[in-house]
């Protein structure tokens, strides 16, 4: 592999990693900060992509979809959390079962709605106008959309960091994770807080759906793939922190990319091997904070 090739693959790895971060951010938020196992995360991502498809078709604007889809998924999250998850705080196995059920319902619903232009047919979201060309970088052509994705991922990370550390709601979420009972005793409506947090997580999944759709496409089974990648990123990077999601995607993205081309026989197992190694030697993840209790 020449230096030029390596640079190009590094760029590939970076853009893939950025997509993984956007995808995993929502899961990390819900997982790490609410201690809720949300296995419907992939389905939320999938639904976001299909909503974006419809919105783009109706309005001709990718940017409209970028706004509508996350909002739609956040609305769904506002419904789902109190209805299905509120009573299950701390009951991980029940959360697993109910979120698996929810993801099956969502994915099959999408499959059946052929008349909405969804259905089982493989579909694609076109690049937005202005980001649909390729530019010459490192000796080859590179799609500008992928560069946009890198910038978007970085921007999102920054935004989430600011929200988490510098705003009231971020402080509330941090407090709620630390000691929900105390927070409630202080007069904060922790139920509503967690509902909002879940909705944000779902919205982030929807956002990922929009941003990733032009790259990953829309097809049956995309929810499972997305969920698995998200879980790997969150585990590798560290549960319970945004920086964990960044670290995780920064590792998994390039590792997957280089792994595919350098060791194709092991490509299938490579990222799982990485996850296993991290879990064995640094179970809280590369940047994870130590969790007390479960």
């Amino acid at each position, binding site marked *: 592999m020449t230096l030029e090739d390596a640079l190009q693959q590094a760029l590939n790895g970076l853009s893939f990693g950025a997509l993984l971060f956007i995808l995993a951010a929502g899961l990390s938020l819900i997982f790490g900060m609410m201690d809720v*196992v949300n296995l419907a995360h992939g389905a939320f991502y999938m639904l976001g992509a299909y909503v974006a498809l419809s919105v783009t078709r109706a309005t001709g604007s990718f940017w409209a979809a970028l706004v509508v889809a996350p909002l739609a998924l956040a609305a769904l999250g506002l419904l789902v959390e109190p209805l*299905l998850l509120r009573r*299950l705080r701390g009951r*991980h*196995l*029940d959360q*697993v*079962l*109910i979120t*698996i*059920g*929810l*993801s*099956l*319902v969502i*994915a*099959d*619903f999408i*499959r*059946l709605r052929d008349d909405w232009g969804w259905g089982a047919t493989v579909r694609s979201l076109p690049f937005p106008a202005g980001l649909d060309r390729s530019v010459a970088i490192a000796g080859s052509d590179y799609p500008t959309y992928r560069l946009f994705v890198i910038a978007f991922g970085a921007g999102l990370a920054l935004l989430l960091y600011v929200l988490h550390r510098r705003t009231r709601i971020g402080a509330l979420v941090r407090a709620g994770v630390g000691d929900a009972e105390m927070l409630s005793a202080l007069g904060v409506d922790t139920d509503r807080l967690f509902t909002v947090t879940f909705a944000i997580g779902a919205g982030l999944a929807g956002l990922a759906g929009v941003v990733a759709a032009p790259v990953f496409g829309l097809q049956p089974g995309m929810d*499972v793939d997305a969920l*698995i990648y998200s*879980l*790997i990123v969150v*585990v590798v990077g560290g*549960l319970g922190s945004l920086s964990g999601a960044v670290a995780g995607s920064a590792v998994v993205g390039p590792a997957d990319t280089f792994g595919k081309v350098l060791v194709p*026989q*092991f490509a*299938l*197992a490579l990222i*799982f*091997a990485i*996850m*296993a190694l991290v*879990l*064995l030697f640094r*179970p809280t993840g590369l940047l994870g904070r130590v969790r007390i209790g*479960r």
Partner: protein
Amino acid sequence: MSRSTRIRAAIVLAVWVALATFPEWSVAWESSRFAAGIIRQILIFAIFASSLNLLVGYAGLPSLGHAAFFGGGAYAAAIVAQRLGTDELLVSLGAAVAGAALLALVVGYLAVRAVGIFFLMLTLALAQMVFAIAFQATDLTGGSNGFSGVHRPVLLGIDFNAANDLYLLVCAVALLVALLLWRLATSSYGRALVGVRENERRMRALGYDTRTLKLSAFVLAGALAGVAGALSAYEFRFVSPNDVALGTSVAGFVMVLIGGAGTLVGPIVGAAVVLSIERVLPSQLPAQMVLGIVFIAFVVFARQGLVGAVRRAVRA
């Protein structure tokens, strides 16, 4: 044995006899043959789910990679039988148990260092690596096209080729596994596992080697999953990477939860529910969606799974 236990044992035995003779007494029913096939599959997955229940329900080890031992056992049974050119039940079943147990030993040794969510993800990761091997080692496993031409076994001259004969074999093995798990659950070993689930630190303080306990449960559960895998290889005469895939692990996990983790009959009920929806429901109905709604319903309405809900209803 107390009186209530004896009554329960009698009921179980009566049910089992009725089940085992089902092909005979239902022969007039036009769906008899098909139903018998579905029952065989339910029993096979009941064994699989029961073995996982030992981990999830009793030892408190949520494993999302159990299919590695199910499929691993299936492949072992199929490959060894073909390589050695023999259909002897004890050989292929023995290979399945040995192969699955060995695999479980390796995986478990690595996995039991972790707890809770980490254990879950680690078992998932290790199982996916097993899947990758099954998918790519085409010369050994047939690769993505699967391993075909598996023979139904022969035991000391008795041939289990016919569907009804295999049915009896599956029923017999299911009963043996159920008895084994029942003995385990009520033994001090089973209670020790529950103790580890409830409070591992206290068990350690009491002098139990909790890591060995957990590892032994993992290997035992793996071996039993391998038994189910072997039966699956006989039933379908085919093994595919699907049998070690995440979907199968999740299916088993879900069967345990629906039926009721930590009960003996729960996994059987769970297997019956999931397989009925996936394989019997008419194709016009969206099976995956029905399955999803069933899962949601169980968590909302039946916290201890179906068995727990029935128990509560009976008591009420």
